[in-house]
């Protein structure tokens, strides 16, 4: 459980999936619009992933494919994956896909993830190494969290390289204190 304390992992697992209950469950309704607190067999419910995963292990639910892997997204990725806005669909597209793939009865998610990542990776790398400054490009806003990590790693590598070539101050103020100290005159 190397990822127990990992913040990104926790946020990934919070994504909603829709499931169908195979067994009834009582005493759980916190659903604001239902009158009773009983979930019948065969009822369709939206659960966060962590709950759906555990219940599926105990065969209490069956999980449907979440909407971010539906046909529309697939077509878009086939057409031109570098400009698909994955972040609005699911900011942890790849992580979530990896977790969903074993428990959903769909074998093609793995290939989808791989092809999307391969074609986007090229774009990410070229933009990261050549973009003049990060905040300006709109490219940034369509990347998922994992791609952003790659992007930032590449950018910081470039910056360190340039610094090494130029030679600048090597001791920095601690990053937690913020970048600029206001000079009080």
């Amino acid at each position, binding site marked *: 459980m190397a990822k127990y304390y990992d913040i990104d992992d926790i946020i990934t697992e919070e994504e909603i999936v829709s499931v169908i209950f195979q067994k009834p469950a009582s005493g*759980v309704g916190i659903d604001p619009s239902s009158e009773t607190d009983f979930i019948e067999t065969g009822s369709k419910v939206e659960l966060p992933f962590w709950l759906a995963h555990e219940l599926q292990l105990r065969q209490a639910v069956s999980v449907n494919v979440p909407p971010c892997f539906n046909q529309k997204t697939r077509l878009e990725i086939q057409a031109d994956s570098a400009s698909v806005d994955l972040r609005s669909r699911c900011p942890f597209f790849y992580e979530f896909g990896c977790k969903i793939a074993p428990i959903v009865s769909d074998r093609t998610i793995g290939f989808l993830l791989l092809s999307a990542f391969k074609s986007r990776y090229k774009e990410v790398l070229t933009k990261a190494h050549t973009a003049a400054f990060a905040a300006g490009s709109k490219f940034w806003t369509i990347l998922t969290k994992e791609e952003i990590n790659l992007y930032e790693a590449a950018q910081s590598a470039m910056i360190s390289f340039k610094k090494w070539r130029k030679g600048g101050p090597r001791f920095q*103020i*601690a990053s937690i204190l913020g970048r600029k100290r206001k000079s009080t005159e």
Partner: protein
Amino acid sequence: MLTRNRIDGTGGFLFSDLSKHTASTLATMIHLRWRTELQLRLRNFLYTLGQSLHSDSLSFSRHKRRLLVNRLCFCSFRLRRLRSILSPYSLQPLLNMYGRKACELVKEFASVGKGQLTQYNSDLFEQVVAECSQHHLELQSLIRKMQEEGLDVQTARNADHYGALIHHLALVRNKRCLMAYVNNRAEIIRSLVWKIGSVLPKEIEEKLSHTEEEYFNKYSGELKKYMSKMELDLTVDMVPPKDPYIKVRVLDDIGDGIVLSDKTANFARHSIHFLKRTDAEQFISRGLMEELTG
């Protein structure tokens, strides 16, 4: 009045003016073809609205707040009635917001950049802990119910069992979020001791809770004890050294007569000194000096 062109391409619509509509127009909208998605969004919206009405950060006036609360009650009442009418196109109920608050806590921590701290959110923390006790109570009552019916708690798989299971899982999830929150903050505090030394700067002190400050002090105390036993200062030379001496410019008033390892210096603002690197490192990482090159 709601018109078609308010509906954006995905079939949702702009919720910013939702509160202006009466419950009847909302009901009419729900009867239109965007049933399920609309219901889902509507419920989400109502839930977050209801949530935010409780939070202090909302800047609504009291009158507006009361208006919204009335609308909220009306809307949720109408929703319930509509649900029975529309049951074939079944609503997809959100299994409560189990673990939502805990996730919110974690997201708040993650919302600032890596290595930065937010203000310690003790309210939300307490709320999550209270939620945990509630789950525990429900769990116990379900188990008791199973025992009263004479079923073997370990092996019976009836509805109560699954209900108890869900409560248990929610409890474990809340625990994980809380632990991750505290642990990640503690990690940042530890790295702070290595960088800045034993004195907490004011702006960081405001963001920590009482126990976290104690943790900071104890940790830096232990580090000092260890370093004095080894007779070695471990917090310097974090970057591989090039020169034993560096040139620095003082940015803030540090005071006069500071004793350094080889001399006593007066640090007036904007003065330039030629110091031993090991002495200067601590001042630089606190932002009181900057390194001059060239």
